């Protein structure tokens, strides 16, 4: 199935970059799979919708705060949970749900299958290019999880 994997986050804001790091690892792991693309974006809303357009399936990896778990906790969520990770909305243009509806109305081909992997962050307020330890440990877990998911649904 034609799939886009999208890493979301801010690369210079500590744990907020976790989605980008996971996407980077997945890019390496999935090299050679012509049906899976990997991209990284720093802003949600319309940019996110546009990154998803044209694909049958989208997998989003993002940081999360307020999910209830301890830092490093991984959540595998369905599309209904999209609004709850950190970066899926852009308050500068539209929430993701509005952006998706706009895209659909405008005739864009949007994925019917959208899943999100989110990692509970510890620190999203320090300028740093490093993840905190618990969040760092979650990276390979998410990478394996996503790869397994892709293999099981090939």
């Amino acid at each position, binding site marked *: 199935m034609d799939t886009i994997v999208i890493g979301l986050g*801010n*690369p*210079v*804001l500590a744990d*907020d970059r976790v989605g980008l790091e996971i996407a980077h690892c997945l890019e390496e792991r999935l090299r050679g799979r012509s049906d899976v693309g990997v991209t990284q*974006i*720093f*802003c*949600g809303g*319309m*940019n996110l919708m*546009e990154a998803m357009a044209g694909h049958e399936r989208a997998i989003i990896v993002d940081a999360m*705060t307020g999910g209830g778990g301890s830092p490093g906790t991984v959540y595998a969520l369905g599309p209904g949970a999209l*609004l*709850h990770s*950190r*970066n899926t*909305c*852009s*308050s*500068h*243009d*539209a*929430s993701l749900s*509005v952006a998706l*509806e*706009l*895209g659909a*109305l*405008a*005739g*864009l081909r949007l994925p019917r299958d959208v899943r999100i992997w989110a990692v509970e962050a510890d620190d*999203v*307020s*320090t*300028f*740093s290019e490093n993840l905190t330890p618990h969040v760092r440990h979650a990276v390979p877990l998410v990478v394996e999880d996503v790869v397994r998911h892709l293999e099981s649904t090939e």
Partner: protein
Amino acid sequence: MKRVTINPITRLEGHGKIEIFLDEEGNVANAYFQVPELRGFEQFCVGRRAEEMPVITNRICGVCPEAHHMAAVKALDRLFAVEPPAAAKKIRELLYMAFFVTDHTTHFYALGGPDFIVGPDAPPAERNILGVIRKVGLDVGKRVIECRARNHRVIQMLGGRQIHPVAGLPGGWSKSVSEEERREIEEIARQNIEFALFSLGVFEAIVLQNPEYVEMVRSDVYHDATYSMGTVDGHNRLNLFDGEIRVVDPDGGELVKYDPSDYTAHIAERVEPWTYLKFPYLKQVGWKGFRGGKDSGVYSATPLSRLNVCDGLATPRAQEQFEKFQEAFGSAKAGGRYRPVHHRLATHWARLIELLYAAEHMLELATDPEITSPHVRNLPVTCVGRGVGSVEAPRGTLTHDYSAGPDGILTKVNLIVGTTNNHAAIAMSIRKAAEKLIRAGRVVEEGLLNRIEMAFRLYDPCLSCATHALPGEMPLVVNINNHSGEQIRSFRREG
């Protein structure tokens, strides 16, 4: 004293809150605009190689990375004392015009425009781009998406990456433009002009033809007369990319015009105990509090301010629209130029005129014979210790100031982002709108709160840049408390 809280501000990047204090009669006693701030970005940059800055600073914010990229490369040109070849400057500006078209389009249709197109009193769930489509037609949604897509393609072609360009280097640009790319960009620029004219037509039909909206735009609620700031070219025409910073007083007289690198001689920052925000003001005039007028150093740097400081626009159709804009407000000419317009809601119109200018200038650059020159870089050979770069970001003048040792390692970084310039003016506009709209005995309803929000939404403030905070979900919480602090009403809506 009653307290009305709008928290956080809907549909704005980052998060903030407005606190409105009412006196015992129920009138506005005071209004504050507060945002939390992440500190330390400048310090995060110190110790890095200066040439990393165009890529690092464009990650501060997901909204206008192109503006940071350009201010950074221009600062590096000066830091390394290297003049880019003419073609490189034009390629930078060509990309920047594509960015301006995208950003202004997105603001008008998704953020600021819904207040007019859907209506200021419409339910919040409808005041978004979907509401615009319902009002104007599905075609407009398609046009917005197509506009974004084609200009993102230009940014990717020229900048090496979509949205976050990486091609800027001290002394020039990392790749030249092929004739095939140039032809494609030329066609995109033509489509942008058509789209800008269409958008001005939408504004005309929906706002200017509606007496109620015209009255709202011209009302005292949204009127603040401050100094205006913007970049102009050698003929005092609007320039979004390069030139001198011009400041005019509320009557239109030129206070000062300076090279961007001299900003510290003209701008100082005021600190207030109730907020992390700093409030830049004009040194020459001085800080006299949150008020307008000729003797107060508060200034604005917005699309409206840019039209206020310039003598005209350099492209023909945008100039026509500029004159139409001035005539609509009855702005008399003084000293060869129009007097400033201080009706803040006119900023939305000014933004569309800039959209047209950016599209027209994009076409000029795309058809410039020099744009495909292979000579796009001069190599830097020295580091002179300090470099300042400046562009007009969509939200106001953006300044990057870098200091570095002879080895090019950064020792000091200072950024003044577009929104920061407007902090004092935003606070004033909120207070003015609140004072005029909330009166004794009047129930504070959702639509009324939105009309207060409109007073700052017109600035298109990007708080994530200004505060270095990042956006998450944006619920709006409004609490109204009576004079003893007891909460009497509470609103919540998703952002």
